[in-house]
């Protein structure tokens, strides 16, 4: 291993980390909103909506992400109507095409995770909330969603990690994120192993931090599973 070359590579790859993180964060956040909507469609009980969500999930989970990216980036430009529409400034940009494709893709996977979480909420909790006189939106906001989020979090963590990995495909449509820069250096120098090790370490570090973060959120969301902390102040004194 040539250390000075590895260091040089590391410096140029670090500069590409923000783009990788930006792609991942944008698509995970937008994807979560879409995923929640899809999960609610699946559970809505309205057959048309249910089938729409099913079809969506089937199509996006059954095709490679790269095909979806190509379909949006190259495919849509086939139509003059798209090229002349107000959306063209967005659909012309590889960055936005990558974000759109990643968002649509992750929404399909995440909607199933969220659906599982929503289904896992014990019926008794909802009944108790109804008995307290909560309106249905409040039940959803205060009872169902927090419990579902807690339940879905481990699975969602895995999905986030695969999204970080999936951002590497953006390099194929010319975006210079970590993998894009790595591929450029490899094809210029043909020193695949050094570049692979450095780029791999960067992805591992990102994913490691991400798992820690998910664990932290999991910890914060499950106070009822923790050992009670010793109360040092006497009750009622704080008032």
């Amino acid at each position: 291993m040539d250390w000075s070359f590895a260091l040089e590579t590391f410096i140029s790859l670090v500069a590409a980390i923000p783009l990788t993180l930006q792609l991942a964060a944008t698509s995970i956040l937008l994807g979560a909103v879409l995923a929640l909507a899809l999960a609610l469609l699946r559970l809505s009980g309205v057959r048309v909506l249910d089938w729409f969500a099913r079809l969506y999930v089937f199509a996006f989970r059954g095709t490679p992400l790269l095909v979806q990216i190509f379909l949006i980036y190259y495919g849509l430009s086939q139509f003059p109507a798209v090229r002349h529409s107000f959306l063209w400034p967005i659909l012309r940009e590889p960055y936005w095409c990558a974000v759109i494709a990643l968002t649509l893709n992750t929404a399909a996977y995440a909607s199933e995770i969220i659906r599982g979480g929503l289904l896992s909420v014990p019926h008794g909790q909802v009944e108790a909330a109804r008995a307290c006189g909560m309106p249905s939106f409040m039940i959803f906001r205060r009872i169902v969603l927090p419990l579902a989020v807690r339940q879905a979090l481990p699975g969602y963590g895995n999905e986030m990690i695969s999204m970080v990995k999936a951002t590497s495909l953006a390099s194929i449509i010319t975006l210079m994120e970590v993998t894009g820069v790595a591929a450029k250096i490899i094809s210029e120098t043909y020193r695949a192993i050094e570049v692979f090790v450095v780029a791999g370490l960067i992805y591992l570090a990102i994913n490691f931090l991400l798992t820690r973060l998910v664990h932290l959120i999991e910890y914060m969301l499950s106070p009822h599973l923790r050992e009670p902390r010793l109360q040092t102040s006497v009750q009622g004194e704080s008032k």
Partner: protein
Amino acid sequence: MNQPGFLDIISFGPGGWGAALLTGAMMTILIAISGFAIGSVIGTFGAWAKVSGGKTIRFIADGYTTVLRGIPDLLVIYLFYFGGSAAVTAIGRFFGSDGFIGFPGFLAGALAVGITSGAQQTEVFRGAFKAVHRGEIEAAIACGMSRGLRFRRIIAPLTVRHALPGMGNVWQVVLKESALVSITGVVELLRQAQIGAGSTGMPFNFYVVAGATYLAISTLSGALLQRSERHFSRGVRRN
């Protein structure tokens, strides 16, 4: 306009791309099967290393699965494609040939897919082995079966039964991952669609056809997997 219509693309007649796309689909299946087979072999050894290896072997196996599950598959393909070419060129130089020797894209792709799916299959097999009841193995020992016989008649079939659903998931992932091999220039389904898109100027139609073909392959293989699951679960009582 003299542009081919949607049906002309998939037609098998003159000027149609049906035959080319079908050949590409065959190549996709071939890559996926090779990668999956390599991954199964790696997974078997990985699971064995994790279950009954010594401290060092277990450490290596843990490192392998952690690293490969945290790194984008695309990066691994780049490593094998460019790294393989560099290695082959170096070997060629050793034997007196000068000049660049390319590493076959198919081999690089199958190896890369195999190694990434091997990490997933290690976990699948390990979990499946853990699910085999101790009592079954004890009973086999009590019957006086030798180690080999025990593995062949008791452990292997039971492990496969528990591993099949997980293996089905890995297969679907492998199938979609095989699309990434298109970057090495292997003319599989996605690459063929790219070629068609380039020469007709109709990217949308071609990528839609490619996506639909992936969906068809994954649906068909999913149905096959379900049948084999039923085969290996004969005699399991369902409540």
